[in-house]
């Protein structure tokens, strides 16, 4: 890899020390500015949507000299992508597209992802760097438990893990007993999956009498879902591993926008490809470093579908203080909350992460839970369903009632709202591809 241009050469084996992760800030900003200018010119020329949007905002490609001018550019929202479906955001003719991920099902709000060869190359590079950031190395045996079909995570991880020089087992999601057998028999050292799936796998292994702490497994690359620090601690303890988060934005690229390093103190954004900003979700005004707001990403090297200032809906903060790992890339705080992962009850905003942290604060409660929102006689009602496990089960009704009460107390403390808890039988809460919907809202049904 050429550390001054950030160009990733396929023929040169990956070496973390020569990665663009360590480029000093000044040349990094120069590179970002150059790539931003190119991106703006390309979308202005090839994407009618952006040309019109820029005209409306009174900005032309010549007005953008560096990343300091990025605030002059218009935002892109998820709704814009929906309106542009299927080809409206393409900056290249279809014959230059090498990979196409249409929506994963019939939906009234479809979004498409397209990649050219260069995009796939860039995607591979960012995944390699993300995996390396998480401490995954050449020679690691990686069990890729992410879906390989129309969801992009599985494929992206596969490309990167191959390039890294790891052994990739493309097992995809589900069939947990089989996953545990493969993990044990082949000495898997790293697993990629969603946090809730890993938690389920840990439980299942326990039940099968397989002690994950005795296996070579040492790292988990967790994707696609926010999860609390308490949940991470539980995963790390129960499986005897380190768990790292890799961040992606499904509309911007898929997985590979940023990753945690061994310091586990925020995710380094691969800024040479994705320029991060934090804005006030309500006004769109930029927020200073350290303040929480909505993450906005501009792609700096996307070919097929470049995006300007895409509103990700993820709430986080930008951290610019130096990281002990030596990477110069700025970090974002782990995304605990998404704009959609929030509900309002009794006039109070409640985030799923607050409920999860409360559940985890009560000893012995594994976080298979679901928040049910219903309407009864015109009033909104919330209920948190929590699965009972062997670990917390008692033969005494009083003990379970106390558990229920403690859970309710913690939720009240965390959210400021009294939300009743209902204890339910194991495996009764829906799990989709190891990723269950945390909120089931039937208020308007």
């Amino acid at each position, binding site marked *: 890899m050429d550390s001054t241009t950030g160009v990733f050469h396929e023929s040169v084996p990956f070496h973390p020390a020569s990665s663009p992760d360590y480029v000093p800030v000044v040349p990094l900003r120069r590179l970002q500015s150059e790539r931003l200018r190119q991106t703006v010119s390309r979308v202005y020329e090839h994407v009618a949507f952006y040309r019109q949007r820029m005209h409306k905002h009174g900005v032309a490609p010549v007005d953008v000299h560096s990343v300091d001018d990025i605030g002059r550019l218009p935002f892109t929202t998820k709704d814009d992508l929906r309106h542009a479906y299927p080809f409206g955001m393409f900056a290249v003719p279809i014959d230059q597209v090498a990979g196409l991920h249409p929506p994963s099902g019939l939906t009234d709000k479809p979004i498409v992802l397209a990649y050219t060869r260069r995009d796939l190359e860039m995607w591979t590079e960012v995944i390699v760097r993300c995996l390396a950031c998480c401490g995954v190395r050449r020679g690691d045996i990686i069990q890729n438990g992410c879906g390989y079909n129309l969801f992009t995570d599985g494929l992206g991880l596969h490309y990167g893990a191959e390039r890294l020089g790891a052994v990739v087992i493309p097992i995809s999601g589900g069939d947990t007993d089989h996953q545990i057998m493969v993990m044990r028999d082949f000495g898997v050292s790293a697993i990629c999956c969603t946090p809730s799936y890993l938690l389920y796998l840990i439980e299942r292994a326990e*039940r099968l009498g397989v002690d994950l702490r005795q296996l070579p497994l040492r790292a988990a690359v967790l994707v696609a879902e926010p999860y609390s620090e308490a949940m991470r601690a539980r995963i790390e303890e129960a499986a005897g591993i380190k768990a790292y988060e890799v961040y992606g934005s499904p509309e911007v690229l898929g997985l590979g926008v940023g990753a945690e390093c061994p310091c586990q103190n925020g995710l380094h954004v691969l800024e040479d490809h994705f320029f991060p900003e934090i804005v006030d979700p309500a006004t769109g005004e930029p927020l200073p470093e350290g303040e929480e707001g909505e993450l906005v990403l501009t792609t700096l090297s996307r070919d097929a579908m470049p995006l300007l200032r895409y509103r990700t809906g993820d709430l986080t903060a930008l951290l610019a203080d130096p990281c002990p790992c030596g990477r110069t890339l700025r970090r974002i705080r782990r995304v605990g909350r998404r704009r959609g992962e929030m509900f309002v009850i009794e006039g109070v905003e409640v985030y799923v992460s607050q409920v999860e942290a409360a559940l985890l604060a009560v000893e012995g409660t594994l976080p298979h839970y679901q928040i049910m929102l219903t309407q009864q006689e015109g009033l909104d009602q919330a209920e948190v369903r929590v699965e*009972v*496990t*062997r670990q917390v*089960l*008692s*033969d*005494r*009704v009083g003990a*379970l*009632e106390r558990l229920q009460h403690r859970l309710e107390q913690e939720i009240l403390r965390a959210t400021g709202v009294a939300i009743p808890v*209902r*204890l*339910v*039988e*194991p*495996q*009764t809460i829906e799990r989709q591809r190891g990723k269950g919907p945390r909120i089931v809202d039937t208020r308007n049904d």
Partner: protein
Amino acid sequence: MKIPQISVFLENKPGRLITPCRLLTEAGINILTLSLADTEQFGILRLIVRQWQRARDLLESSGLAVTVTEVLAIEVRDQPGGLLELLEVFQRAGINVEYMYAFTARLGNRAVLVFRFDDLDRAITALTRAGINPVSPVTLYDSLEEA
């Protein structure tokens, strides 16, 4: 002399009792006695069976939450005052009974009760001092299955 008791968590919904009962039936496991403690939302089904390990594994692998605790089976005279004598032993020793239920079958002319204490060993000591021996698991299983 301690008897393993299986407890199963069930949601308080119509038909939920059928699942564990059917599983045990299919495995040919006889329920010697049971009790159901319930609240508005959930219940705990407690079972005494001879093959408790098999029953536990079976119920667990079907996805139910199961826990095993130890209880005592104690014989009492099946006459007025039989239970009272026993309860007075606990009261004198300051031992708290968490809950109790009965076997339907009798041992000879005596009734058999299941007791759950918060401190099992203290209960055993108090009973022994009072000259009462809890029924051993083997005696219990054998005589109840014959009966």
